[in-house]
């Protein structure tokens, strides 16, 4: 958590003001008993009612002053706390923005989302309370000690001794509590995970009549978490009574020795009363602090989770000095490319060499898991090769400025992902200022214009988050339109025709051919019809190229291909 709080430096000025205000606030609080003792010792003993009233007025003024500072504290605490967390939120979003597939795999998209939203919120709430309440406690303690030394150095010793004892217990208890809280957080994650699985898998669970077993699985996770959570709460429950007890014992000692001093005439009764109230005010500050401290472990585990993300260094970044090819035609070449995932023993793909040329269609076909998507993901650097190299117009993709490289590639990923907005905003995603003609043109090529025109608001028809309000086939065509509208000279389709019927599929390929004559087209497909007419077909099996050529040749020379052809074209 401390690591994150370094970001507070920006608010140094406000924090200084905040601390000054906190000092004023606590001084005002502590000064009231002081004035009360004056009333008792001078007003009451002498029976001077005027004096008592004058002092009362003065006390009101001080109280007002204290509350005004407290409001100021609230203002700055909110400003700093919320501002700081806004900074963290922005920083996190920006940082995650640099992540590519490898990093997303590492943490998981849903976990990243929780960390960027809920965790930051928790941190914010804690930070504000920290400034308002937790910092107040030591200031109150210090103020109390100073005022009491001023009044009676000997009795002040009691306060001075109380402080380290309190700190000791605080440390002891929190030290026990933190690990338990962390464990609880993990167990809570598990409970939520099982619940999530129960919801997303409801059909399967019922199909297998596993309701009972799922209930038991949940019960187990739930019971485990409840146990840990009770344990953590019980530990925290000791904090407040112990703090109160220490202060109260301090009070008793003060009264005992104070009584002796009073009887010796070295102290006034009012002073003793002031002392007792100092202790009480300090106690309340500490109790409030301990209540907030109960929030600390949770906030700290949130901070850890945030830090974990911030500590991940994205692997795919801009090169130190970027190159640009002398000529931009769109030749994509794979030279003995190898890709190994994480710590796997065997590379997912190896020995991949081929060239995709402008004006031609290069197709990749092969079994699921044979590495088709892995290969094409290397072109826009969604991942980096672990051996060999991929070049575009003769320059290694790792030597390009990322934006320069990616803006040349129109890539349609396998999962048809749309953003909330309108059909128009999704097609014109790359460049918001795209003209309507360009948008319609792209939609026509993608065979999307027909169904768009049937929508109520046509191109302005809304798209819900994730594109859930259009069918799978429509979603796929919109993502294709988006890629075409980006006017890239390299078009890559990752199994992007799967949800289309054969007629649409054929029409779409024809339209692309007519409209993007000079583009380099790379198509990954499962259906042989989609790629039959490609200029070059690469046949992939278990991460290796086992055939390369045209349909008619491959049918004869490549067993794997012939087999696919025979099942699909029978």
């Amino acid at each position, binding site marked *: 958590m401390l690591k994150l709080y370094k970001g507070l430096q920006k608010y140094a000025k406000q924090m200084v003001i905040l601390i000054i205000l906190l000092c004023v606030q606590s001084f005002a609080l502590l000064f009231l008993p002081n004035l009360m003792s004056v009333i008792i010792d001078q007003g009451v003993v002498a029976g001077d009612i005027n004096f008592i009233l004058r002092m009362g007025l003065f006390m009101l003024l001080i109280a007002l002053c204290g509350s005004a500072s407290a409001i100021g504290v609230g203002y700055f605490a909110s400003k700093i706390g919320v501002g700081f967390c806004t900074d963290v939120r922005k920083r996190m*979003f920006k940082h995650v*923005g640099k992540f590519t597939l490898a990093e997303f795999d590492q943490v998981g998209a849903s976990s990243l989302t929780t960390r960027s939203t809920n965790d930051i919120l928790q941190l914010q709430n804690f930070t504000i309370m920290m400034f308002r309440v937790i910092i107040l406690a030591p200031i109150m303690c210090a103020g109390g000690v100073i005022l009491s030394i001023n009044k009676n150095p000997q009795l002040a010793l009691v306060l001075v001794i109380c402080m380290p004892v309190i700190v000791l217990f605080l440390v002891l208890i929190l030290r026990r509590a933190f690990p338990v809280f962390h464990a609880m957080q993990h167990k809570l994650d598990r409970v939520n995970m099982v619940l999530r*699985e129960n919801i997303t898998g409801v059909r399967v669970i019922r199909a297998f009549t596993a309701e009972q077993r799922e209930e038991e699985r949940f019960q187990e996770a739930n019971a485990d978490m409840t146990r840990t959570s009770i344990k953590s709460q019980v530990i925290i429950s000791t904090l407040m009574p112990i703090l109160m007890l220490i202060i109260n014992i301090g009070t008793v000692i003060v009264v*005992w020795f104070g009584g002796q001093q009073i009887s010796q005439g070295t102290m006034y009764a009012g002073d003793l*009363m002031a002392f007792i109230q100092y202790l009480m005010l300090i106690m309340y500050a500490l109790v409030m602090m301990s209540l907030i401290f109960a929030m600390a472990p949770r906030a700290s585990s949130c901070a850890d989770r945030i830090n974990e993300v911030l500590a991940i260094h994205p692997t795919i970044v801009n090169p130190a000095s970027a190159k640009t090819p002398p000529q931009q035609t769109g030749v994509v070449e794979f030279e003995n490319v190898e890709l190994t995932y994480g710590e796997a023993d065997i590379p997912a793909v190896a020995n991949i060499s081929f060239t995709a040329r402008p004006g031609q269609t290069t197709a990749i076909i092969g079994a699921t898991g044979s590495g088709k998507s892995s290969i094409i993901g290397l072109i826009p650097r969604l991942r980096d090769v672990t051996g060999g190299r991929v070049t575009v117009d003769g320059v290694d993709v790792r030597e390009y400025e990322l934006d320069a490289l990616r803006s040349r590639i129109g890539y349609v990923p396998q999962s048809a992902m749309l953003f909330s907005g309108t059909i128009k905003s999704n097609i014109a995603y790359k460049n918001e200022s795209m003209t309507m003609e360009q948008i319609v043109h792209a939609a026509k090529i993608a065979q999307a214009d027909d169904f768009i025109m049937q929508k109520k608001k046509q191109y302005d028809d809304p798209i819900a988050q994730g594109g859930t309000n259009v069918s799978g086939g429509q979603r796929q065509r919109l993502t294709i339109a988006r890629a075409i509208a980006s006017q890239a000279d390299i078009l890559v389709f990752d199994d992007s025709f799967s949800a289309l019927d054969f007629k649409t599929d054929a029409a779409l390929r024809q339209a692309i051919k007519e409209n993007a004559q000079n583009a380099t087209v790379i198509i990954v497909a499962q259906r042989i019809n989609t790629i039959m007419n490609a200029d070059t077909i690469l046949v992939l099996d278990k991460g290796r190229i086992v055939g390369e050529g045209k349909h008619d040749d491959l049918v004869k020379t490549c067993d794997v291909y012939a087999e696919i052809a025979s099942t699909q074209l029978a």
Partner: protein
Amino acid sequence: MTMNTNKKASDAKASTFWPTAKRLLGYFKPYRKKVILMFLFAALGVAFLITGPRLLGHSTDIIIQGIVYDSAGNVADAHVNFQALKVNLAVLLIVYGLSALFTYLQQRTTAQVAQRTIYDLREDVDKKIQRLPLNYYDTHTHGDILSRTTTDIEQISTTIQQMLVQFITAAFTIIGIVIMMFTISWQMSIIALCVLPAALFLCSIVIRKSQKYFLGQQDKLGTVNSYVEEQYSGHTVIKLYGTEERTEDAFDAMSDALNEDARRAQFASSIMMPVTNLVGNIGYVGICVLGGIMTSNGNLTIGAIQSFIQYTQQFTQPIIQTSNILNLLQSTIAAAERVFDLLDDPEQSPERENLQVIDRAKGDIEFDHVRFGYSADKILITDMNAKIQQGQKVGICGPTGAGKTTLVNLLMRFYDISGGSIKIDGIDTRDMSRQNVRRLFGMVLQDTWLYSASIRDNIRYGRPEATDQEVEEACKMANADYFISTLPEGYDTPIDESASNLSAGQKQLLTIARAFCADPQILILDEATSSVDTRTEKLIAEAMERLTKGRTNFQIAHRLSTIRDADLILVMKDGDIVEQGNHDQLMERDGVYAGLYNSQFA
């Protein structure tokens, strides 16, 4: 209690506030004994707590009574009764100790009660999840269900304990202090009590004013969160189109807007404490002055003032706590309401009485004048009739969105039909339990749901008692054996939540293996072949051939080649069955099927 299922308001409405609160309190019933203990401990803790100042005041009086001042205010004679003081202080120590002990016991008991209550609530929710009709899942987004079952419950869980502890203590403390005050001086008590309504009044103003900002904050937070979710899930697209900067700018703008409202909301709520404190301090000053005057007149001892002052200081604390709790209470009750909404949603229709049981089906299936619609006013299937013999292969096809999964929903009783009957071996499926019906089926669904456990456990999901050997056998049949053996831990490889360590095809193979392992008598293959490559598909087809021998099987197909040899093909369009027959009959008919077939193989 009537609950509005579609209600999405972020705050509890007044009309439902109390019923919801009452219902939430109902969760404490099983822990009646603990709750009583909790109150008892709280009462004792508070009793000892508020005895403290009185005894302390008494100590001061003992000291002062022993001192005689001369006219100049100096000590003239001192014979403090230290023996009495010692006894008094010893009693005080015991009182403080007991107060600490009972406070601890109260908090501990509350923690136990609160956490167990939340445990029960979570259990109820999970049980409900298993009992809601599938219609619920088809009409609600996962996000909505998830936020009710996770975020809302967490919200209740974090606040309920705090509320219990503070509320009970605050209530007892206020009552106790008022009593103690009146035993000291009714005049001063009245001053102190004026503080209470004033403080509550000011708090309610602050709460009301800040409500606007809180709603604003909630609203902007929702925007930011859903933006994050969307952009993270579309991160590849952002990268491919180089729109990072635009996305960031948009996010920054949203964050800044949130920052404004959040700051205002937090500030507004932070005003409460100083305001209450101020009112409390005004009371304090009043008491000092009045007490000073009364003591001067000899109507009050100094120790009594001291006690009284301590009581006033203790008084503001519970008031602040109460106002904080009121704030929390609103959002907690709103969260509880959303959870209860879910718990109150109608469950699956109850089973009939005198259920019949089929242990192993032969596999004869009959659709007899089946009528069905997802809602009563929109009937999709008007009158479907079909007889399927044991061991036959039934193909289901039609254009996308034709409602092919509807048939599966009906066969497995995910939905109940509105008219007619579906019979297995001559028995109406509604005369069997849902579980019985489903146990007869094996199914490979479109979405390959796997759960976080080992591959082995996932495969034996439909039949937990399957041996390791049977699991491996099933995998061999599904051709999943090869890739599993290449995984680092083989069959014991854990699958993480999103199964991101497996490819789509591999997941599909596992779900096929899972169906093999369950060894059912009727099979449903829900477009199983769409994401498995054609080579594997061929191998599966062979294995399937073996497995489906003597077993009735339904195949939902997009590619017609997979069902060409089916004994019966059901052609669906717009939710209804428009044609049925075998391939040759349908081709001859030259209708929808023939059209589809020709477009695929043109």
